[in-house]
């Protein structure tokens, strides 16, 4: 985004650096080129814009998402691996007026936590889940995940993922949209380009709005780069997201808000 802004200086556009939301104005330790930072920024901006940045509790997953904990200035609990769906269920039940967010990676939400994640969606819990999908277990050194691409080399699939014995990459927002009728919102974004980042922000905001209105469960999965474990440069990783990952994980909204459906009528 910064590169994009610089090209505009020729036309003397008055560029004001965007203020970092107070919620996240602390150093975080993600790898260079990782998408987590962009996603966290988007969530914090949306919370600010919705006037909820002083009314939020995070349930943070285990993995690279753990690193968010040290960078946040808000109520947040580092949940056991995969259990954020259960922890956030209770937080929202006892504090219905707080915005409750689970922030998890694909390993946390879809592998070890598939039971808790799916069950929260199934019960239509009124919190919001953000899943950062980088198609591998980043924190532990790049092992295979339930979202690893067919043929993708990881440290536990060194010859490339063999889907005949390990399963096909899981598409969770589609599962929510197709199976859980009561759920309010399900979408998938990506951090690969400024256009996709902007779209992702609208998805994040809609998910939070679905929670604020009490419409039901909301989930946004965000495809994210992992240059460290993919063995790529940051620009290569962004290109890879678009060219290799997105074809298997289509971007867009799979379930739109009930309020929006009402407006259509």
């Amino acid at each position, binding site marked *: 985004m910064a590169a994009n802004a610089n090209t505009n200086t020729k036309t003397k556009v008055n560029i004001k650096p965007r203020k970092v939301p107070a919620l996240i104005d602390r150093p975080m330790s993600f790898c260079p080129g990782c998408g987590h930072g962009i996603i966290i920024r988007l969530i914090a901006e949306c919370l600010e814009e919705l006037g909820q940045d002083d009314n939020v*509790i995070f*349930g943070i997953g285990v993995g690279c998402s753990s690193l968010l904990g040290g960078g946040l200035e808000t*109520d947040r609990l580092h949940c*056991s691996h995969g*259990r954020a769906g259960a922890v956030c269920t*209770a937080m929202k039940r*006892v*504090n219905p*007026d707080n915005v409750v967010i689970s922030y998890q990676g694909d390993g946390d939400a879809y592998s070890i936590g598939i039971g808790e994640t799916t*069950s929260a969606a199934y019960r239509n819990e009124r919190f919001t889940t953000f899943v950062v999908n980088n198609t591998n277990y980043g924190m532990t050194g790049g092992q295979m995940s339930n979202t690893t691409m067919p043929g993708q080399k990881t440290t536990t699939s060194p010859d490339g993922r063999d889907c005949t014995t390990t399963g096909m990459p899981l598409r969770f927002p589609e599962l929510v949209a197709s199976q859980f009728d009561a759920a309010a919102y399900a979408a998938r974004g990506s951090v690969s380009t400024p256009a996709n980042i902007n779209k992702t922000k609208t998805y994040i905001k809609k998910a939070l709005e679905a929670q604020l209105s009490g419409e039901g469960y909301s989930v946004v999965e965000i495809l994210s780069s992992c240059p460290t474990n993919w063995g790529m440069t940051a620009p290569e990783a962004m290109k890879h997201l678009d060219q290799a990952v997105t074809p298997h994980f289509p971007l867009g909204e799979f379930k739109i808000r009930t309020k929006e459906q009402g407006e259509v009528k």
Partner: protein
Amino acid sequence: MSTVKGEMIKGNEAIAEAAIRAGARFYAGYPITPSSEIMEYMSWRLKEVGGAFVQAESEIAGINMIIGSAACGVRSITASSGPGISLKQEGMTTLSDEELPAVVVNVVRYGNGIGTLLSAQCDYHRETRGGGNGDYRCIVLCPSSVQEAADLTVEAFDLAEKYRMVSVLMTEGALGQMMEPCVLPEMQTPKRFEWGFDGKYSNKKIGIFDRDSMKESVALNEKYNKVKEIEQRWEAQHIEDAEYVFVAYGMPGRATIGAVEQLRAQGHKVGYIRPITAWPFPEKAFEQVNPDVKGYISIEANATGQLVDDIALTVMRQGKKKGSNCVGGSCPAPVYCNPHVYGVPSTKAIMEDYSKVLSGELKEVY
């Protein structure tokens, strides 16, 4: 238990109603025999009092829900048995790590693996030693009657919050299922604890990410030592002049009291210590025992003998304090144990154990 008072109520239901009256406003769990009545009761009763109830997809999810509600400062309780409590260990160590109070009821059933439906005391070591990963303790309370189960439920919440620890109410299948008269505790107005999450980051001590384990370990030991010093609870009788002292908790503890009374009536110098807290172990009770006691007899319902270890450790420590000759692990007074596996040993069976100790047929464990 002095005189018979109160209405007849099942042990499990007495615990559930006592929890409500203590101000519990959140329950999450997964049913398992012989604990399910607690969950069933909570499913409608919490709704009546404006609390929240979640039938979780598993015990793991259930205890993690308890973490979520406890972090928001709500009195929270879950119950299970045997293998269900095994699954809850992950959450119990996390609660302990974050110093979040909660009450976990273990209606103990017998067996390893999925176990059986028989009443037992086989989880003593697990409950008193922490159970999950890491290095922590839970306060463990052991009722021997329905009335005591109700009273200790309230106590379990108070202690959990006083020390920011997990309290385990370690009851037994038989006690959970049986009915007795019980005077239920008074209804308290539920409170939110000021340290709970409110979305405004008012309290920065939960959800700690920058750890200093060296400092935390010192604080943890100070806390646990304080609990050991002031929260030991027990019932004891006839121990000052006893030649043999029985030690038993819960339902076997109750049966032991009957056996001691009968043996006393026959002229035998016996007494009993009934631990009410299994952790902290009531070491102080042993200070009042006859210094010339000839032996301790552990009465417990498990296969291998577990309580006997804590008795031996305590007796050895008492011996050292008094300066007795306690070298090479041999203690001043021998400790005997004939584990009764499951169920509640009869008065007759306990008296037979005593006879076997006297005749030398039952060898000392320590």
